[in-house]
């Protein structure tokens, strides 16, 4: 699908596909931790955050197709309806790709405010699908989007830091 990938901007850090896959994998694992009770309410959606990170920083590496596939995996693990996470993550990836230049213009604090509506949109889609099909809605679910948005800064710093030393060893 993405058959010819160039380094689009030379001042951006290069990245290996392996690293992208590993980060998504770790995010899925974090989402699958046994969250319970009050922690479940505050659970950030790590997968959505990492997807959004890659969609804004490397829009030609990670696209809607990957977001969709990850969403299907999340659906299986969460026993939610097939396509529920997939739909939310596809829309999230799309909005991230469309707005990536705009988001990257800002510093980290402002970025948090910029990506919060995107996360909220993804959460709203997930909740709306559930509401349409099952007829109930849990408002505390949206607390997760706030927590996720707050984690955007730390996550960006972490991923940037991990990407920097890797390029020397991975790129041969």
């Amino acid at each position, binding site marked *: 699908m993405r058959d010819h990938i160039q380094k689009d901007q030379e001042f951006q850090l290069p990245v290996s596909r392996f690293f992208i896959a590993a980060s998504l994998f770790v995010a899925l694992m974090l989402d*699958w931790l*046994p969250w319970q009770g009050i922690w479940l309410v505050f659970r950030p959606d790590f997968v959505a955050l990492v997807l959004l990170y890659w969609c804004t920083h490397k829009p030609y590496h990670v696209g809607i*197709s990957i977001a969709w596939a990850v969403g299907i995996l999340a659906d*299986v693990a969460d026993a939610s309806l097939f396509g529920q996470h*997939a739909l939310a993550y596809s829309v999230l990836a799309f909005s991230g790709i*469309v707005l990536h230049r705009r988001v990257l213009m800002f510093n980290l604090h402002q970025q948090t405010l910029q990506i919060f509506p995107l996360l909220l949109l993804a959460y709203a889609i997930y909740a709306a699908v559930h509401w349409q099909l099952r007829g*109930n809605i849990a408002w505390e679910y949206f607390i997760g989007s706030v927590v996720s948005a707050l984690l955007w800064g730390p996550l960006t710093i972490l991923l940037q830091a991990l990407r920097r030393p890797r390029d020397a060893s991975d790129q041969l």
Partner: protein
Amino acid sequence: MEHNQPLRFFNRGPSPAVRLVFFALLSLLLLFVDVRYRYLESIRSGLSVLVYPLQRLVTAPSNLWHEVDAFFVSHNSLIRDNAELRHQHTLDVAQLLQLEVLKTENQHLRNLLMVQRRADYPIQLAEIMYVERDIFNRKILLDKGTQANVLAGQIVMDDSGIVGQVTRVYPWMSEVTLITDKDHAVPVQVLRNGLRSVVFGSGDTGELALRYMPISSDIQNGDVLVTSGIDGTYPPGLPVAKVIHVERDPAYPFARILCAPIAGVDKRRQLLILSALVKLPERPEVAVETATDKPKSGRRGSR
């Protein structure tokens, strides 16, 4: 939007919008198929085989913590527990003897009355692998699946009462919908006077609702609800819930009755799966008057 588009020197395939529409439609199609038909269960269980080892891996630390915790239980408390359990055991044995006598007597009486005999249910012990992380669903995953002959529709309980029902079975695990799930209904009977009703989950932990009960119905605080066994899914006589709040407002046609589940729906790690499904004879075609007692036989057909 014009300046947001990258200059198209290279062919990068379809634009994001086209891809979004494609994948959104695909998701909606999957959603529709998943809700309406049950074709996707095999794909789901196939993918779950892939996901299962990872889930085990992720839950390993917390399991390890529980094990370490259990290992360092102090000597004293072990001795105390042991004494307590011995005490309980002697009491239970005495009661069990009485039960045996009562059981044979009951069987005998039932034979005399020509009533269908009650079955004994084989029981399987299963451990909670983990609790659903989806805040909308009240579901848990147990570590027994089709490999251990678990079937969808079987009842899950703990030592004090009903916890839920197996709704989906994978090769090595099974998904249990708790009685507190919004979609779940259990046909019950008030232990005190035999009043029949249906108790619904409210989506909240620790709360069930008894709906569609007239204001005049004889229900008090502290009434114990047991399964009536009328639906053919739940065996009769298992404790389900206790009434904690009754509100009779003449402005509404029905009383507002809240109950608390008797079983530790959210507390246990080990649960019991009742392995036998009760087989009732086929229901006759015209049976309109029992419509209230049979809301959903196990919520399988009703989704």
